């Protein structure tokens, strides 16, 4: 049984969001990079839990990015991945990225492909669905629980106003979110072991990018809070009703 976990490098959640080069580039000055939390806490940790139950499981990691992704890949290996592949490109088009991952997926013959539900920088939530299409596998989005029973999986996913439980034969592509697993901290042994685990760097396949980022913008600043005295709650209700027209 082989699992492919897709991981992506994102700025730490507390990073200051600013842009440079005439608002065309994210300002990386002083930014700490982390594994996208959905990829790490939910997709990767769930894969590791499955491997803990069945040590014959092999976990491969794939990331699409330049050499500055290596630290987060080493961290993912320290948490428990067995091997990693990095596709060496900084293209940001989701189809381009998904097609690179699909190439890796087709060659590797994986039973299960896991991703986070979205990255916290581009918020695309596109990669998993695209990879599923490109490898022609079923896709379960926004999964909150995942159990393996031999060659089938029982998966709970979020739907509008509730959840759906389904059974599906492997191979399957799953995008993961809260509920799947809990965040872990890598231990010393994992960190030492990660140093010698294979990290293969591959050049990207020839794929057409279908989108490109032209520019970024910051939202206009809020006008500032209007404070109301706790002894005059009626005034807040009046403002919400008459001024904001929100109630």
């Amino acid at each position, binding site marked *: 049984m082989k699992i492919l976990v897709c991981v992506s490098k994102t700025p730490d959640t507390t990073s200051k969001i600013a*842009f440079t080069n005439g608002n065309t580039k994210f300002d990386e000055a002083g930014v700490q990079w982390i594994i996208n939390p959905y990829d790490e*806490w939910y997709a990767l940790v769930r894969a590791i839990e499955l491997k803990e139950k069945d040590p014959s499981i092999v976990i491969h990691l794939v990331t699409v990015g330049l050499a500055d992704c290596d630290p987060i890949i080493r961290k993912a290996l320290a948490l428990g991945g067995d091997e990693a592949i990095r596709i060496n490109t900084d293209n940001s088009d989701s189809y381009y990225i998904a097609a690179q991952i699909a190439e890796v997926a087709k060659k590797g013959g994986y039973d299960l492909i896991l991703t986070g539900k979205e990255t916290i920088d581009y918020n695309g939530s596109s990669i998993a669905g695209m990879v599923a299409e490109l490898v022609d596998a079923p896709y379960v989005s926004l999964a909150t629980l995942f159990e393996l029973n031999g060659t089938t999986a029982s998966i709970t996913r979020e739907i509008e106003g509730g959840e759906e439980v389904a059974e599906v034969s492997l191979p399957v592509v799953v995008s993961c979110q809260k509920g799947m697993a809990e965040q872990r901290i890598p231990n010393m042994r994992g960190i030492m072991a990660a140093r010698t685990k294979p990290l293969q760097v591959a050049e990207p396949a020839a794929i057409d990018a279908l989108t490109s980022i032209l520019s970024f913008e910051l939202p206009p600043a809020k006008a500032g809070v209007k404070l109301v005295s706790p002894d005059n709650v009626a005034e807040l209700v009046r403002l919400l009703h008459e001024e904001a027209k929100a109630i």
Partner: protein
Amino acid sequence: MSVLIFADQTEGHIKKASFEVLSYGAALAKQMGTSAEALVLGTVTDDLAALGKYGVAKVHQVANETLNHVDAQLYAKVIAEAVTATGATVLVFSHTQTGKAVSARTAARLKAGIVTGACALPDTSNGFTVKKTVFSGKAFANISISSPIKVISLNLNSFKTVAGEGTAEVVALNVAVDASKIKITAINKIVGEVPLTEADIVVSGGRGLKGPENWGVLLDLAKELHAGTACSRPVGDAHWRPHHEHVGQTGVQIAPNLYIALGISGAIQHLAGVNRSKVIVVINKDPEAPFFKAADYGIVGDLFEVVPKLTEEIKKLHAST
């Protein structure tokens, strides 16, 4: 070269989010000088001709019962065939759970560029550029799509639903539907609650409520406002409230008209899930709480004293209007 809008249904009814995206698609078609058409999958009880009032000329329906459940694999194939059959050059989804499951997969099948989380009409004056939220609502990106077919998934509550006059022509679309490889064994709908992502008003509680036994004050206010209820991450982690109420960077992202935060400090990760709300009200006893910087209205005070008064005042308002 029409604009095809995916109008999502559940249990035979077109979803509220679909009206917003129909209005958006119709406005886009007008801007491009072309026609807007809708696509409905599965069997429905609603009158589909009535969707004409949101500006679509035609509603294509693939009335196959297999499609009453969303399987991204089947949906992508059927929607892609509908795009080809109708000759659409722009395909629009709502960025709901279903949109997230289906839009990107369909785009890959069509080899079409996609922008998800769009928040405004595209700029079509020179190419095709779509504005979307990035960094969990902390910024926007303008993304140009270069492929012949373009796919957009529109953020909830980011376009004004416009209902006018008009009836649409309903056309049956015959598309072969495969058997699903996914066997659904249970569907658990949350009953008696306003679904969080669809709620106009959301009342949310943080660690300031001190414990699950104190949620009554919040629930009373939410009930009076017909609001959805949410919570901060530590509250969800401590199981004071169910997981699905956790909003923020690592929880649900919402954009209601009104977000009322009770006893929440306003950490950057929390704000990332709620900063697209139109109006934010913060009640917190600490005047230095960072949430006040992101708020429109605020009360510095003890929520256990303020919130019951607020509920009473809203009752009075509702009684008088």
